């Protein structure tokens, strides 16, 4: 079977997801300006320990090989280790994303002792100034301390996870050097206008010239850098980057959010992309296999306005979430379309006053209320 026919098969969906993200909580000690889930405060409807274990039982039966745990900050949950241990004991490997705040020396040793566990430390700058502007004051030191603790505990090759922005594109070599210094693996992913990113994307997303830089850098280093296949929209610039050149939403990818809602991907927390809830009869398995939304995403998708563009086969029209939250039609160009079609459409939208209110907002906002400034 050729690579194209494999992708054609994957587009019709798999019996179970390959890449399942599970945000365990909306609670977070940080409040990053691009947080895809608008996290901050816990939601009182979050799954209990027992409910979470029943979900893991189903994932085991579906032979989901591993899950990507995130949040919020997943280590905030008091049952974090209990759930991770239950998952691994069920044959489901765990990769979890963390800002590192809770990885002290003792926790690092506990994590290092576990099998089938991968850790991704989020870091969006090679220096505190660049990182903290996005992730909050003190978050750079927090991440470095966690990495030092993991290294001291001989955890092995953890991952450093970077969201590429206008302000850190120039630091890609620096990130690679930092990862190499720790014996870590670098993971870089695309910024989406999701969650609080709806409001920060305009200021943070890479310029068109920087997209070329990212593409060239990945062509040179892609073999040793993880990307979650998130940059496939850049394939219109030349030969394809390593990885599956397709949108996996609802086909090979999905998200379970902290309250058990199942979305097509981690970047579309919005009613329009909610397929069901793990608390529904039949649980996650039924949502994955039978939801109308996922069935429709597994149908052949229309190229729409992109049908006449010679680059469509290469870029596949880009990212559904990026289009949706910038107010662009799903069957048209990505807002970061490398040929500039998306920018033109965004400019047209911006010039149409009514369109501003039509831009979708995320389904929920768990951002913490602003603190009253302390009196001097």
């Amino acid at each position, binding site marked *: *079977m050729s690579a194209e026919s*494999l992708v054609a*098969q994957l587009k019709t969906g798999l019996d*179970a997801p390959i890449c399942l993200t599970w945000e365990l909580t909306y609670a977070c000690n940080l409040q990053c300006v691009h947080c895809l889930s608008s996290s901050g405060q816990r939601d009182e409807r979050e799954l209990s320990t027992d409910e979470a274990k029943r979900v893991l039982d189903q994932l085991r039966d579906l032979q989901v*090989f591993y899950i990507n745990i995130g949040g919020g900050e997943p280590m905030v949950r008091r049952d974090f280790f209990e759930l991770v241990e239950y998952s691994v004991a069920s044959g489901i490997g765990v990769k979890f994303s963390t800002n590192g705040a809770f990885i002290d020396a003792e926790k690092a040793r506990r994590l290092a002792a576990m099998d089938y566990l991968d850790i991704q430390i989020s870091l969006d700058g090679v220096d505190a100034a660049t990182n903290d502007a996005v992730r909050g004051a003190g978050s750079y030191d927090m991440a470095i301390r966690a990495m030092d603790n993991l290294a001291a505990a001989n955890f092995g090759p953890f991952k450093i996870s970077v969201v590429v922005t206008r302000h850190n594109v120039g630091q890609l070599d620096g990130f690679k050097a930092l990862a190499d210094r720790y014996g870590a693996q670098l993971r870089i992913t695309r910024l989406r206008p999701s969650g609080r990113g709806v409001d920060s994307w305009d200021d943070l997303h890479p310029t068109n010239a920087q997209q070329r830089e990212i593409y060239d850098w990945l062509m040179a280093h892609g073999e040793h850098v993880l990307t979650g296949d998130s940059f496939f929209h850049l394939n219109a610039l030349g030969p394809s980057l390593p990885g599956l050149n397709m949108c996996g939403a609802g086909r090979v990818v999905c998200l379970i959010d902290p309250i058990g809602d199942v979305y097509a991907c981690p970047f579309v927390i919005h009613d329009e992309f909610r397929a069901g809830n793990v608390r529904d009869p039949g649980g996650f398995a039924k949502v994955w296999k039978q939801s109308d939304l996922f069935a429709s995403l597994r149908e052949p998708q229309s190229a729409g306005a992109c049908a006449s563009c010679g680059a469509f086969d290469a870029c596949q029209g880009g990212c559904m979430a990026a289009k949706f939250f910038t107010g662009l039609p799903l069957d048209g160009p990505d807002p970061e379309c490398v040929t500039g079609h998306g920018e033109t459409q965004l400019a047209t939208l911006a010039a149409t006053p009514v369109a501003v209110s039509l831009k979708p907002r995320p389904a929920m906002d768990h951002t913490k209320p602003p603190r009253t400034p302390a009196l001097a």
Partner: protein
Amino acid sequence: MSTELIAHPLLGVALDLHPQVALRPEPFGALAYHYGNRRLVFLKHPDMVTVARALGQHPTFAGALRASHIDEARWPSFAIAFASLQASDVVVVRVSPEAGDA
């Protein structure tokens, strides 16, 4: 079996599925996940899955192909496919060959 086919180095070798690899059946064949190196590999034909599952019961890769009723004309392409599975450590050369059927 013909000497011409045995000439592919892998055909005469005893192979096993790596003990840390799990196979999940899918319409196109199967997904293979390696819990050790965390790699996900696609077995792009149901026959590859049958052969992969049979490896451990046979003294050679060729024996597993024959037992899985794979036409000899297809053996060279299976040898190439399984060489790539070997490269990603999904299948490994058996350390101490055990006697299976012929």
